[in-house]
């Protein structure tokens, strides 16, 4: 079933048990919304010695937006800003590929499970919500992305 390519096991796992989800406590908190569907995310992080740390997010939304935020936070936490940027670019490219690009697993890890989302144009913004919040927060914390 085509649906199973969208709702992969790993996505539903992250949806049911999201990682790094809690009350963001950082000084700089970004708040992103997807105005089409009302999905919201608040996220904060710190950058220490060039590394992404203390990433915490909270939000409401569909399984895709929640799972994607969880996978992203797991992926970039503890990584250097440079590596996080590579992952962000790789993920964005995969999401814009309309199902044609599966993404490199050595860069994206669990996030390759979201490749199927790019076949559903209405859901791409859901998957990108957390990642865009991360990008914004990193920039506001002085990272050059």
């Amino acid at each position, binding site marked *: 079933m085509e649906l199973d390519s969208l*709702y992969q*096991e790993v996505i539903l796992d992250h949806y049911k048990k999201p990682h790094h989800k809690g009350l963001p406590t950082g000084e700089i908190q970004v708040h992103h919304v997807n105005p089409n*569907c*009302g*999905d919201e995310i608040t996220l904060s992080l710190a950058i220490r010695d060039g590394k992404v740390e203390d990433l915490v997010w909270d939000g409401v*939304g*569909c*399984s895709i937006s929640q799972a994607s935020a969880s996978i992203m936070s797991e992926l970039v936490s503890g990584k250097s800003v440079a590596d996080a940027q590579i992952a962000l670019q790789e993920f964005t490219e995969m999401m814009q590929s309309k199902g044609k690009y599966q993404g490199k697993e050595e860069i994206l890890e669990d996030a390759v499970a979201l490749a199927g989302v790019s076949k559903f144009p209405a*859901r791409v913004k*859901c998957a990108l919500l957390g990642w865009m919040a991360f990008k914004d927060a990193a920039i506001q914390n002085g990272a050059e992305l």
Partner: protein
Amino acid sequence: MKSTLDVAAIKSDFPIFDVPMRGGKRLVFLDSGATSQKPIQVMDAERNFYSTQNAAVHRGSYYLAEIASEAYEGARESVAKFLQVKSEEIIFTKSATESLNLLAVSFERSSGRLGIKAGDEIVVSELEHHANLLPWQQLAKRTGAVLKWFEMNADGSLDLSRIDEVITSKCKVVAITHQSNVLGSAPDIAPIIAAAHAVGAIFVLDGCQSVPHQPVDIKGLDIDFLTFSGHKALGPTGIGVLWGRSELLEQMEPFLYGGSMIETVTMTNATWAPSPKRFEAGVPNMAQAVGLAAALDYLSAVGLSNIHSWEMQLTEYALKGLQEIDGVSVVGPQGLANRGGVISFVIDKLHPHDVGQVMDQYGVAVRTGHHCAWPLIRKLGLTGTTRASFYLYNDLADVDVLLESVLGARDYFRKR
């Protein structure tokens, strides 16, 4: 259950139903609350206008311009006949959204009974679509007027217990929907209209969800303005209607400035044409107006009362089916009283986008999310709903697929 309509014959007028959906599924279109599908008669009317009548209306002195003007003004007469009002009271806009913005901006520029200034009060309700909230909310911000509203009860009706506190002698405008686009609930507007008129306020009715689906008696309701959108009434996109009492329209300042809407123009000044031209700046959406007239003719031929009663039969069948499914909660009115053919529901704790995605696999087109009525959704303590809305081309088999797809969505996430 016997249909009051020949739905099979109606369906055959709509070519879109021949288009296969994802996985080759037949289209089960349950999103007419967002936009309706178009019968071939409407497309033919537009095509005929462009093929045989196209010229800028009210300008040229040549033959074709006369034909175009006749077609466009003929469309206005058709709309007037449909609503049983005078044709000079019909203003063509690009959408109902534009109609409501037109009113808000014009009231800001007008004086006297219609003028809005600091300290005046504007009344809406928590049921409103953003299109009937934001023009008034922003008008209040710009002018220093006060925005007030009727609160919504859990069943989608309005709390009228403090009507005298909501509508006071400071009230200038009351703008309320005839039927919620989210819940299908039809608020009890009669006492609101009476209260508005008792203090000399104007009453604006948002008829987007009612005019295409049931007979609306403008004179009987005793309202001052009404709007609806063409594309929700089998008509083309890009055409909306604003009806207003002629004595009020004559007192109103223009919304958009430009060609066609003037009486005289100098380099430093201008005077305005009478309504409706005053409110139709620029070359209008002519083919769309003609298409809308064809759509209203189609609806009239089927009969608005027949359409309404058929939609209520579909709603009864769907409500019963949904309410019997474990894990499904219908949001808003639970019965058939004071509602139209729109049903919102939630499944377990699933996000509506996930629900809609699975339903799509069955060929079912429903709307998911906040339905451009975010305050209403917040009031219900939800992030969104899934909404099925019916129209004359839906049949009982469509409802059966709806119910099957709802079960499918529930089980898809339950078992995983």
